[in-house]
């Protein structure tokens, strides 16, 4: 039960303090009662038992992914 999953905000519902998120094709509405900062369409968030827990820092994620890409490229160059 402790796995929370990355999703993307696709619709805002300020009247009910909730947002609709897309989790790889599955859409559902979740609460943002735990979020102080406002969310925007396109934001990446972590969802846990029906709540947005936080925003995922897209820059930091992209940075990690770039680092991994570099690691793999180096490895493949060494193998070649």
């Amino acid at each position: 039960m402790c796995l929370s999953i990355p999703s993307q905000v696709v619709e805002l519902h300020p009247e009910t303090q909730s947002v609709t998120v897309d989790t790889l094709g599955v859409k559902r509405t979740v609460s943002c009662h735990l979020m102080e900062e406002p969310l925007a369409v396109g934001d990446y968030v972590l969802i846990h038992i029906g709540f947005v827990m936080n925003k995922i820092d897209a820059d930091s994620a992209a940075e990690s992914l770039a680092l991994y890409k570099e690691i793999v490229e180096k490895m493949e160059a060494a193998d070649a």
Partner: protein
Amino acid sequence: MPELQLKQLYDGFRDPRTVAELASQIKQLAAKLEEPVNVMEVCGGHTHTIMKYGLLQLLPDNIEFIHGPGCPVCIMPKERIDQAAALAQIPDVILVTLGDMIRVPGSEGSLAQFRAKGCDIRPIYMPLDALKIAQENPDKTVVYFAIGFETSTPMTAVLLEQAEKLGINNLLFHINHVLVPPAIDAVMADPETRVNAFIGPSHVSVITGSQIYQPTVDNYHTPVVVSGFEPVDVMQSILSIVKQKVEGRCELENQYERAVSYKGNEAAQQKVNQYFTVRPSFRWRGLGPIPNSALMLKPEYRHRDAELKYGERLPVKEIDDHKACQCGDILRGKAKPQDCKVFGRGCTPKPR
């Protein structure tokens, strides 16, 4: 930088080539280790990743995993489940709980078995669903059997806040929220514990911040790396732990920077502090009673506390684990799950 796609947040952190490369870096570095590293992954989520992606097979023999007490379902002692079952047997009570909980056996059976006998027990996926059930059943009392670590407590706080705000008075709570740091202390208090590094449960830290593990680092001189749940995350965290060990450091590191900050989600922490206070003691399956290791409602909200309201009807007898149960030793890394003589015989936990 090209725009990040949601899919990359999954695939990028599961890439088998990255996992393989990190594994070979770990292997090289681990050859320099003077003593084996016994990493406790506190949280069931990491255990799941390690099993599902076969990470164990990729690692050298001098790195071992010890599965920690971080699954809220697994650490629930039988008497708490017996209490839930007792609540569900009171006429006009609807017992509501998160789906995973209903198959875990108490001393008289699981909640699923009580439901089959006619008790009104409803598994839900999100705590806020309990509001609707309470609204739709004004002549019944709905009891939310609340479970979970720091990750799940703020959601219970919001449920309570909404019930108060909307004047939904037929919603009560049976609180079983537990805390990670006291459980780590219980593991480390045993002088024979073999644990000498931790992978920190990241979703706990999404809420609390990575800060909650600083005392672990300071008190036990062990590295703690807060890690994401994908296989690449876990491998990178192990690499960091091995690096620390080889260089003779023990520090708090945050591998999961894309989702965890040092301070965490302060709005969520504030809600928890508004409604909850520390419970003097809570018994954990396998570890026994641990002081200050769980939460309870603040006195201002005692009118919502099912444990108080139905106190006389709740069994308080502590039900010990099977005599031969080795959970405590397993959690301290002194025994392996397969060493347990009653596994699958006297003990048949069925979380799924």
